[in-house]
Protein backbone atom coordinates (compact mmCIF):
# COMPACT_ATOMS: atom_id res chain seq x y z
CA UNK A 1 0.00 0.00 0.00
CA UNK A 2 1.39 3.50 -0.96
CA UNK A 3 1.46 5.92 1.90
CA UNK A 4 0.99 9.69 1.49
CA UNK A 5 4.70 10.10 2.18
CA UNK A 6 6.67 10.62 -0.99
CA UNK A 7 10.24 9.63 -1.10
CA UNK A 8 12.20 12.92 -0.45
CA UNK A 9 15.44 13.61 -2.29
CA UNK A 10 18.34 15.38 -0.75
CA UNK A 11 19.45 18.54 -2.49
CA UNK A 12 22.58 16.88 -3.75
CA UNK A 13 20.51 14.08 -5.17
CA UNK A 14 18.16 16.51 -6.85
CA UNK A 15 20.91 18.56 -8.43
CA UNK A 16 22.68 15.47 -9.56
CA UNK A 17 19.46 14.18 -11.09
CA UNK A 18 18.94 17.38 -13.03
CA UNK A 19 22.52 17.33 -14.19
CA UNK A 20 22.19 13.80 -15.46
CA UNK A 21 18.94 14.60 -17.17
CA UNK A 22 20.48 17.49 -19.00
CA UNK A 23 23.60 15.49 -19.78
CA UNK A 24 21.47 12.79 -21.24
CA UNK A 25 19.97 15.18 -23.78
CA UNK A 26 22.13 15.16 -26.89
CA UNK A 27 20.95 18.62 -27.94
CA UNK A 28 21.91 20.15 -24.61
CA UNK A 29 25.26 18.35 -24.56
CA UNK A 30 26.42 20.50 -27.45
CA UNK A 31 24.18 23.41 -28.33
CA UNK A 32 24.78 26.60 -30.28
CA UNK A 33 23.29 29.68 -28.70
CA UNK A 34 23.11 33.19 -30.06
CA UNK A 35 22.85 36.27 -27.86
CA UNK A 36 24.35 39.50 -26.58
CA UNK A 37 27.14 39.49 -24.00
CA UNK A 38 26.42 41.26 -20.74
CA UNK A 39 28.28 41.61 -17.47
CA UNK A 40 31.46 40.16 -18.94
CA UNK A 41 34.11 39.44 -16.31
CA UNK A 42 37.62 38.18 -16.99
CA UNK A 43 38.59 36.54 -13.73
CA UNK A 44 42.21 36.37 -12.49
CA UNK A 45 42.04 32.61 -12.85
CA UNK A 46 41.64 33.10 -16.59
CA UNK A 47 38.03 31.90 -16.56
CA UNK A 48 35.42 34.15 -18.17
CA UNK A 49 32.01 34.72 -16.63
CA UNK A 50 29.17 36.50 -18.42
CA UNK A 51 25.51 36.41 -19.39
CA UNK A 52 24.08 35.86 -22.79
CA UNK A 53 20.81 37.61 -23.35
CA UNK A 54 18.12 38.44 -25.83
CA UNK A 55 15.12 40.76 -25.55
CA UNK A 56 13.35 38.75 -22.92
CA UNK A 57 15.69 36.25 -21.27
CA UNK A 58 19.26 35.67 -20.19
CA UNK A 59 21.42 32.69 -19.23
CA UNK A 60 24.56 32.49 -17.11
CA UNK A 61 27.74 31.42 -18.94
CA UNK A 62 31.21 30.33 -18.01
CA UNK A 63 34.17 29.83 -20.33
CA UNK A 64 37.13 28.19 -18.65
CA UNK A 65 40.65 29.34 -19.28
CA UNK A 66 41.57 26.43 -21.42
CA UNK A 67 38.65 26.94 -23.77
CA UNK A 68 39.12 30.73 -23.71
CA UNK A 69 42.61 30.31 -25.13
CA UNK A 70 41.00 29.53 -28.42
CA UNK A 71 39.34 32.95 -28.64
CA UNK A 72 40.33 34.98 -31.65
CA UNK A 73 38.76 38.24 -30.47
CA UNK A 74 38.20 40.11 -27.22
CA UNK A 75 34.63 39.60 -25.99
CA UNK A 76 32.95 42.65 -24.54
CA UNK A 77 29.57 43.72 -23.26
CA UNK A 78 27.12 44.49 -25.99
CA UNK A 79 28.72 42.18 -28.51
CA UNK A 80 26.47 39.81 -30.38
CA UNK A 81 28.05 36.36 -30.35
CA UNK A 82 27.28 32.73 -31.01
CA UNK A 83 28.61 30.16 -28.55
CA UNK A 84 28.92 26.43 -28.69
CA UNK A 85 28.29 25.12 -25.19
CA UNK A 86 26.85 22.40 -23.06
CA UNK A 87 23.93 23.29 -20.85
CA UNK A 88 24.38 21.87 -17.44
CA UNK A 89 23.91 22.31 -13.78
CA UNK A 90 26.65 23.18 -11.30
CA UNK A 91 25.65 20.64 -8.70
CA UNK A 92 27.19 22.41 -5.71
CA UNK A 93 25.25 25.65 -6.34
CA UNK A 94 22.31 24.28 -8.20
CA UNK A 95 22.90 26.85 -10.89
CA UNK A 96 22.01 26.22 -14.44
CA UNK A 97 24.54 27.57 -16.85
CA UNK A 98 26.17 27.21 -20.20
CA UNK A 99 29.68 25.80 -20.23
CA UNK A 100 31.11 27.53 -23.28
CA UNK A 101 33.57 25.67 -25.45
CA UNK A 102 33.93 28.16 -28.25
CA UNK A 103 32.61 31.57 -29.20
CA UNK A 104 32.48 33.60 -32.38
CA UNK A 105 31.51 37.20 -32.91
CA UNK A 106 28.36 37.83 -34.88
CA UNK A 107 29.51 40.85 -36.86
CA UNK A 108 30.02 43.47 -34.07
CA UNK A 109 27.75 43.92 -31.06
CA UNK A 110 25.13 46.55 -31.58
CA UNK A 111 26.14 48.78 -28.73
CA UNK A 112 29.82 48.38 -29.36
CA UNK A 113 29.47 49.21 -33.02
CA UNK A 114 27.41 52.28 -32.36
CA UNK A 115 30.04 53.42 -29.87
CA UNK A 116 32.91 53.05 -32.32
CA UNK A 117 31.06 54.72 -35.15
CA UNK A 118 29.97 57.72 -33.11
CA UNK A 119 33.43 58.09 -31.64
CA UNK A 120 34.95 58.28 -35.11
CA UNK A 121 32.32 60.69 -36.36
CA UNK A 122 32.76 63.15 -33.50
CA UNK A 123 36.54 62.86 -33.58
CA UNK A 124 36.47 63.76 -37.27
CA UNK A 125 34.39 66.81 -36.42
CA UNK A 126 37.12 67.87 -34.01
CA UNK A 127 34.98 67.61 -30.89
CA UNK A 128 37.72 65.73 -29.04
CA UNK A 129 40.42 68.25 -30.03
CA UNK A 130 42.66 69.12 -27.05
CA UNK A 131 42.77 72.70 -28.35
CA UNK A 132 39.07 73.26 -27.75
CA UNK A 133 39.18 72.09 -24.15
CA UNK A 134 38.67 74.94 -21.70
CA UNK A 135 40.57 75.44 -18.49
CA UNK A 136 38.79 74.50 -15.30
CA UNK A 137 38.77 77.56 -13.00
CA UNK A 138 41.13 77.26 -10.06
CA UNK A 139 38.60 78.47 -7.53
CA UNK A 140 34.91 78.04 -8.41
CA UNK A 141 32.44 79.85 -6.25
CA UNK A 142 29.62 77.61 -7.45
CA UNK A 143 29.73 74.08 -8.84
CA UNK A 144 26.95 72.61 -10.94
CA UNK A 145 26.15 68.89 -10.99
CA UNK A 146 24.16 66.92 -13.58
CA UNK A 147 23.44 63.48 -12.16
CA UNK A 148 20.83 61.40 -10.42
CA UNK A 149 19.32 62.98 -7.32
CA UNK A 150 19.75 59.72 -5.47
CA UNK A 151 22.75 57.49 -5.43
CA UNK A 152 26.39 57.55 -4.47
CA UNK A 153 27.61 60.01 -7.11
CA UNK A 154 25.90 63.16 -5.86
CA UNK A 155 26.48 62.16 -2.27
CA UNK A 156 30.23 61.69 -2.82
CA UNK A 157 30.56 64.93 -4.75
CA UNK A 158 28.78 66.98 -2.11
CA UNK A 159 30.73 65.45 0.76
CA UNK A 160 34.11 66.02 -0.84
CA UNK A 161 33.31 69.49 -2.14
CA UNK A 162 32.13 70.60 1.30
CA UNK A 163 35.20 69.16 2.97
CA UNK A 164 37.54 71.11 0.71
CA UNK A 165 35.59 74.35 0.70
CA UNK A 166 32.83 74.54 3.31
CA UNK A 167 31.37 77.65 1.69
CA UNK A 168 31.10 76.38 -1.87
CA UNK A 169 27.70 76.82 -3.54
CA UNK A 170 26.20 73.75 -5.16
CA UNK A 171 23.50 73.59 -7.82
CA UNK A 172 22.16 70.15 -8.71
CA UNK A 173 20.22 69.56 -11.93
CA UNK A 174 18.83 66.08 -11.36
CA UNK A 175 18.46 63.68 -14.28
CA UNK A 176 18.12 59.96 -14.96
CA UNK A 177 21.51 58.44 -15.70
CA UNK A 178 20.43 55.13 -17.25
CA UNK A 179 17.56 53.83 -19.30
CA UNK A 180 16.13 55.12 -22.53
CA UNK A 181 15.04 58.48 -21.11
CA UNK A 182 18.43 59.26 -19.62
CA UNK A 183 20.13 60.85 -22.61
CA UNK A 184 17.39 63.45 -23.04
CA UNK A 185 17.30 64.26 -19.35
CA UNK A 186 21.08 64.66 -19.17
CA UNK A 187 21.00 67.05 -22.12
CA UNK A 188 18.26 69.18 -20.55
CA UNK A 189 20.07 69.21 -17.20
CA UNK A 190 23.23 70.59 -18.83
CA UNK A 191 21.15 73.20 -20.65
CA UNK A 192 19.33 74.25 -17.45
CA UNK A 193 22.64 74.72 -15.65
CA UNK A 194 23.95 76.84 -18.51
CA UNK A 195 20.78 78.97 -18.57
CA UNK A 196 20.91 79.60 -14.84
CA UNK A 197 24.55 80.46 -15.39
CA UNK A 198 25.79 80.61 -11.81
CA UNK A 199 28.06 77.60 -11.84
CA UNK A 200 31.74 78.11 -12.66
CA UNK A 201 32.22 74.43 -13.51
CA UNK A 202 29.88 71.49 -14.23
CA UNK A 203 30.27 67.93 -13.06
CA UNK A 204 28.42 65.52 -15.35
CA UNK A 205 28.32 61.79 -14.67
CA UNK A 206 27.24 58.86 -12.55
CA UNK A 207 28.54 56.00 -10.47
CA UNK A 208 29.78 52.65 -11.76
CA UNK A 209 27.73 50.19 -13.84
CA UNK A 210 27.69 47.93 -16.85
CA UNK A 211 28.14 49.15 -20.39
CA UNK A 212 24.41 49.33 -20.88
CA UNK A 213 24.03 51.25 -17.66
CA UNK A 214 26.55 53.83 -18.77
CA UNK A 215 25.37 53.96 -22.33
CA UNK A 216 23.43 57.21 -22.08
CA UNK A 217 26.82 58.92 -21.83
CA UNK A 218 27.73 57.47 -25.23
CA UNK A 219 24.74 59.09 -26.92
CA UNK A 220 25.38 61.73 -29.56
CA UNK A 221 22.94 64.21 -28.00
CA UNK A 222 24.79 64.15 -24.68
CA UNK A 223 28.16 64.58 -26.38
CA UNK A 224 26.90 67.63 -28.29
CA UNK A 225 25.33 69.14 -25.17
CA UNK A 226 28.67 68.87 -23.36
CA UNK A 227 30.50 70.38 -26.32
CA UNK A 228 28.01 73.25 -26.48
CA UNK A 229 28.15 74.01 -22.75
CA UNK A 230 29.42 77.51 -22.05
CA UNK A 231 30.49 76.41 -18.61
CA UNK A 232 33.52 74.06 -18.51
CA UNK A 233 32.58 70.40 -17.97
CA UNK A 234 34.29 67.69 -15.95
CA UNK A 235 32.96 64.22 -16.87
CA UNK A 236 32.86 61.48 -14.26
CA UNK A 237 31.20 58.36 -15.60
CA UNK A 238 31.53 55.03 -13.86
CA UNK A 239 34.87 53.68 -12.77
CA UNK A 240 38.50 54.20 -13.69
CA UNK A 241 38.49 51.86 -16.65
CA UNK A 242 35.29 53.11 -18.26
CA UNK A 243 35.64 55.57 -21.08
CA UNK A 244 32.48 56.96 -22.61
CA UNK A 245 32.10 59.46 -25.41
CA UNK A 246 31.17 62.08 -22.83
CA UNK A 247 34.66 61.60 -21.39
CA UNK A 248 36.26 62.36 -24.74
CA UNK A 249 34.26 65.54 -25.32
CA UNK A 250 34.49 66.96 -21.81
CA UNK A 251 37.03 69.62 -20.92
CA UNK A 252 38.40 67.29 -18.28
CA UNK A 253 37.77 63.63 -17.47
CA UNK A 254 37.67 62.35 -13.90
CA UNK A 255 37.80 58.61 -13.24
CA UNK A 256 35.06 58.82 -10.59
CA UNK A 257 32.58 61.39 -9.20
CA UNK A 258 34.75 61.74 -6.07
CA UNK A 259 37.79 62.51 -8.18
CA UNK A 260 35.73 65.05 -10.09
CA UNK A 261 34.92 66.88 -6.86
CA UNK A 262 38.62 66.96 -5.99
CA UNK A 263 39.52 68.34 -9.41
CA UNK A 264 36.79 70.96 -9.25
CA UNK A 265 37.16 72.23 -5.69
CA UNK A 266 40.55 73.25 -4.28
CA UNK A 267 41.26 72.98 -0.57
CA UNK A 268 40.42 76.50 0.50
CA UNK A 269 42.93 76.31 3.36
CA UNK A 270 45.72 75.92 0.83
CA UNK A 271 44.55 79.01 -1.02
CA UNK A 272 44.40 81.01 2.19
CA UNK A 273 47.96 79.97 2.97
CA UNK A 274 49.09 81.00 -0.49
CA UNK A 275 47.46 84.41 -0.03
CA UNK A 276 49.06 84.84 3.38
CA UNK A 277 52.44 84.04 1.88
CA UNK A 278 51.81 86.61 -0.79
CA UNK A 279 50.89 89.22 1.83
CA UNK A 280 54.19 88.61 3.60
CA UNK A 281 56.07 88.88 0.36
CA UNK A 282 54.38 92.16 -0.49
CA UNK A 283 55.14 93.55 2.95
CA UNK A 284 58.82 92.86 2.39
CA UNK A 285 58.84 93.83 -1.26
CA UNK A 286 59.23 97.57 -0.78
CA UNK A 287 62.19 97.11 1.54
CA UNK A 288 63.74 94.57 -0.78
CA UNK A 289 63.29 96.88 -3.71
CA UNK A 290 64.99 99.64 -1.80
CA UNK A 291 67.88 97.41 -0.80
CA UNK A 292 68.29 96.28 -4.39
CA UNK A 293 68.32 99.85 -5.60
CA UNK A 294 71.04 100.71 -3.09
CA UNK A 295 73.08 97.64 -3.91
CA UNK A 296 72.83 98.39 -7.57
CA UNK A 297 74.08 101.91 -6.99
CA UNK A 298 77.02 100.71 -4.95
CA UNK A 299 77.89 98.10 -7.48
CA UNK A 300 77.78 100.78 -10.12
CA UNK A 301 80.20 102.93 -8.20
CA UNK A 302 82.56 100.07 -7.52
CA UNK A 303 82.13 98.58 -10.92
CA UNK A 304 84.09 98.97 -14.17
CA UNK A 305 82.25 102.11 -15.28
CA UNK A 306 83.75 103.98 -12.39
CA UNK A 307 86.83 101.89 -11.80
CA UNK A 308 88.20 102.31 -15.30
CA UNK A 309 88.34 106.08 -15.24
CA UNK A 310 89.52 105.60 -11.70
CA UNK A 311 92.35 103.62 -13.03
CA UNK A 312 92.96 106.41 -15.40
CA UNK A 313 92.33 109.24 -13.00
CA UNK A 314 93.11 107.97 -9.59
CA UNK A 315 96.15 105.90 -10.41
CA UNK A 316 98.20 108.57 -12.17
CA UNK A 317 97.01 111.06 -9.63
CA UNK A 318 98.07 108.77 -6.89
CA UNK A 319 101.50 108.30 -8.35
CA UNK A 320 101.80 111.99 -8.99
CA UNK A 321 100.80 112.59 -5.43
CA UNK A 322 103.27 110.09 -4.22
CA UNK A 323 105.97 111.66 -6.40
CA UNK A 324 105.09 115.05 -5.14
CA UNK A 325 105.20 114.07 -1.54
CA UNK A 326 108.46 112.30 -2.12
CA UNK A 327 109.84 115.38 -3.70
CA UNK A 328 108.46 117.41 -0.87
CA UNK A 329 110.16 115.22 1.63
CA UNK A 330 113.30 115.41 -0.39
CA UNK A 331 113.08 119.17 -0.52
CA UNK A 332 112.48 119.40 3.16
CA UNK A 333 115.41 117.17 3.85
CA UNK A 334 117.59 119.18 1.53
CA UNK A 335 116.50 122.43 3.07
CA UNK A 336 117.08 121.03 6.47
CA UNK A 337 120.56 119.99 5.38
CA UNK A 338 121.22 123.39 3.91
CA UNK A 339 120.03 125.13 7.01
CA UNK A 340 122.10 122.84 9.11
CA UNK A 341 125.07 123.62 6.96
CA UNK A 342 124.37 127.31 7.14
CA UNK A 343 123.93 127.03 10.82
CA UNK A 344 127.14 125.13 10.97
CA UNK A 345 128.87 127.74 8.88
CA UNK A 346 127.30 130.47 10.86
CA UNK A 347 128.44 128.78 13.98
CA UNK A 348 131.91 128.57 12.53
CA UNK A 349 131.73 132.14 11.48
CA UNK A 350 130.45 133.04 14.82
CA UNK A 351 133.13 131.17 16.53
CA UNK A 352 135.58 132.84 14.25
CA UNK A 353 134.53 136.17 15.51
CA UNK A 354 134.03 135.09 19.08
CA UNK A 355 135.96 137.63 21.11
CA UNK A 356 137.06 134.98 23.55
CA UNK A 357 138.57 133.01 20.72
CA UNK A 358 140.28 136.15 19.51
CA UNK A 359 141.68 136.76 22.91
CA UNK A 360 142.85 133.19 23.13
CA UNK A 361 144.74 133.73 19.95
CA UNK A 362 146.76 136.44 21.74
CA UNK A 363 144.95 139.59 21.12
CA UNK A 364 143.91 141.85 24.01
CA UNK A 365 140.81 143.87 24.50
CA UNK A 366 140.80 147.11 26.48
CA UNK A 367 138.11 148.26 28.83
CA UNK A 368 137.71 151.52 30.66
CA UNK A 369 135.01 151.97 33.22
CA UNK A 370 133.58 148.60 32.27
CA UNK A 371 133.20 149.59 28.66
CA UNK A 372 135.17 148.26 25.76
CA UNK A 373 137.42 150.80 24.11
CA UNK A 374 138.37 150.04 20.59
CA UNK A 375 140.09 153.22 19.38
CA UNK A 376 143.31 154.58 20.73
CA UNK A 377 142.24 158.20 20.51
CA UNK A 378 139.42 157.44 22.88
CA UNK A 379 141.92 156.95 25.67
CA UNK A 380 143.58 159.73 27.67
CA UNK A 381 146.78 159.78 29.67
CA UNK A 382 146.23 158.60 33.21
CA UNK A 383 143.00 156.70 32.28
CA UNK A 384 142.62 153.52 34.34
CA UNK A 385 142.12 150.72 31.93
CA UNK A 386 141.60 147.02 32.17
CA UNK A 387 143.35 144.88 29.62
CA UNK A 388 141.55 141.62 28.95
CA UNK A 389 144.01 139.04 27.83
CA UNK A 390 144.16 135.29 27.54
CA UNK A 391 144.34 134.04 31.08
CA UNK A 392 142.78 137.01 32.79
CA UNK A 393 142.68 140.79 33.14
CA UNK A 394 145.44 143.25 33.78
CA UNK A 395 144.84 146.62 35.46
CA UNK A 396 146.90 149.49 33.99
CA UNK A 397 146.85 153.19 33.34
CA UNK A 398 147.58 155.06 30.17
CA UNK A 399 150.97 156.81 30.11
CA UNK A 400 150.97 158.02 26.53
CA UNK A 401 149.63 157.34 23.03
CA UNK A 402 150.74 157.49 19.42
CA UNK A 403 148.47 157.43 16.38
CA UNK A 404 148.81 154.43 14.03
CA UNK A 405 150.56 154.87 10.61
CA UNK A 406 149.29 153.14 7.42
CA UNK A 407 145.92 151.56 6.42
CA UNK A 408 143.71 149.00 7.87
CA UNK A 409 145.41 146.05 6.26
CA UNK A 410 148.84 146.79 7.41
CA UNK A 411 149.27 147.58 11.06
CA UNK A 412 152.41 148.78 12.56
CA UNK A 413 153.25 147.87 15.99
CA UNK A 414 152.66 150.83 18.14
CA UNK A 415 154.60 151.61 21.23
CA UNK A 416 152.31 152.04 24.14
Amino acid at each position, binding site marked *: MLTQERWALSVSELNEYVRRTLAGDPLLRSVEVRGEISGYRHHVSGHRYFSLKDESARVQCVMFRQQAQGLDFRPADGMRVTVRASASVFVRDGTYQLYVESMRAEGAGDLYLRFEQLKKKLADEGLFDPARKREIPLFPRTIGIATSRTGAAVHDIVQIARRRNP*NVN*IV*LAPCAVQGSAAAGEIVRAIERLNRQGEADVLLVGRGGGSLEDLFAFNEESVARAIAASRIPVISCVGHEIDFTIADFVADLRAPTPSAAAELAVPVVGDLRAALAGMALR*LRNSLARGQALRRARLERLLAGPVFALPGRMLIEPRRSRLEGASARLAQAVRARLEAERTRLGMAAKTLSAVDPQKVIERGYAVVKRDGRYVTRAEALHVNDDITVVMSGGEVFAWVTGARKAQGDVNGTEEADV
Partner: protein
Amino acid sequence: MAQKKLTFEEGMEQLEALARALESGEMPLEESLTAYDKAVKLHKKLQEMLDQGDARIRVLTEAGEQEAREDEF
Protein backbone atom coordinates in the same frame (compact mmCIF):
# COMPACT_ATOMS: atom_id res chain seq x y z
CA MET B 1 31.38 98.67 -19.82
CA ALA B 2 30.99 95.10 -18.63
CA GLN B 3 34.29 93.66 -17.40
CA LYS B 4 34.89 89.96 -17.25
CA LYS B 5 34.80 88.97 -13.59
CA LEU B 6 38.27 88.61 -12.13
CA THR B 7 38.99 84.98 -11.30
CA PHE B 8 40.99 83.98 -8.25
CA GLU B 9 43.69 82.63 -10.50
CA GLU B 10 43.99 85.90 -12.43
CA GLY B 11 44.08 87.83 -9.17
CA MET B 12 46.95 85.71 -7.85
CA GLU B 13 48.86 86.18 -11.10
CA GLN B 14 48.46 89.95 -10.85
CA LEU B 15 49.64 89.93 -7.25
CA GLU B 16 52.66 87.87 -8.25
CA ALA B 17 53.51 90.33 -10.98
CA LEU B 18 53.16 93.29 -8.60
CA ALA B 19 55.33 91.62 -5.97
CA ARG B 20 58.03 90.89 -8.51
CA ALA B 21 57.95 94.44 -9.85
CA LEU B 22 58.21 95.91 -6.34
CA GLU B 23 61.02 93.57 -5.34
CA SER B 24 63.08 94.44 -8.39
CA GLY B 25 63.58 97.98 -7.15
CA GLU B 26 63.37 99.24 -10.69
CA MET B 27 60.31 101.41 -10.22
CA PRO B 28 60.56 105.02 -9.22
CA LEU B 29 59.48 105.48 -5.62
CA GLU B 30 56.15 107.13 -6.35
CA GLU B 31 55.22 104.39 -8.78
CA SER B 32 56.09 101.67 -6.28
CA LEU B 33 53.90 103.22 -3.64
CA THR B 34 50.98 103.26 -6.06
CA ALA B 35 51.68 99.67 -7.03
CA TYR B 36 51.83 98.68 -3.38
CA ASP B 37 48.44 100.24 -2.73
CA LYS B 38 46.99 98.38 -5.68
CA ALA B 39 48.43 95.12 -4.39
CA VAL B 40 46.94 95.64 -0.95
CA LYS B 41 43.49 96.26 -2.43
CA LEU B 42 43.76 93.23 -4.70
CA HIS B 43 44.87 91.03 -1.83
CA LYS B 44 41.85 92.06 0.21
CA LYS B 45 39.57 91.31 -2.71
CA LEU B 46 41.00 87.82 -3.12
CA GLN B 47 40.63 87.14 0.56
CA GLU B 48 36.96 88.09 0.35
CA MET B 49 36.56 85.75 -2.59
CA LEU B 50 37.74 82.82 -0.50
CA ASP B 51 35.16 83.58 2.16
CA GLN B 52 32.33 83.86 -0.32
CA GLY B 53 29.67 81.24 -0.69
CA ASP B 54 26.59 80.38 1.28
CA ALA B 55 27.03 76.60 1.35
CA ARG B 56 23.51 76.07 0.07
CA ILE B 57 22.49 73.23 -2.17
CA ARG B 58 19.90 74.24 -4.71
CA VAL B 59 18.10 71.75 -6.89
CA LEU B 60 17.39 72.94 -10.40
CA THR B 61 14.54 70.80 -11.70
CA GLU B 62 12.57 71.15 -14.92
CA ALA B 63 9.90 72.88 -12.90
CA GLY B 64 12.22 75.39 -11.29
CA GLU B 65 14.72 76.04 -8.55
CA GLN B 66 14.21 74.75 -5.04
CA GLU B 67 16.21 74.32 -1.89
CA ALA B 68 17.43 70.87 -1.03
CA ARG B 69 16.46 69.30 2.24
CA GLU B 70 19.13 69.77 4.88
CA ASP B 71 19.94 66.10 5.22
CA GLU B 72 19.26 65.12 1.64
CA PHE B 73 22.93 64.78 0.73
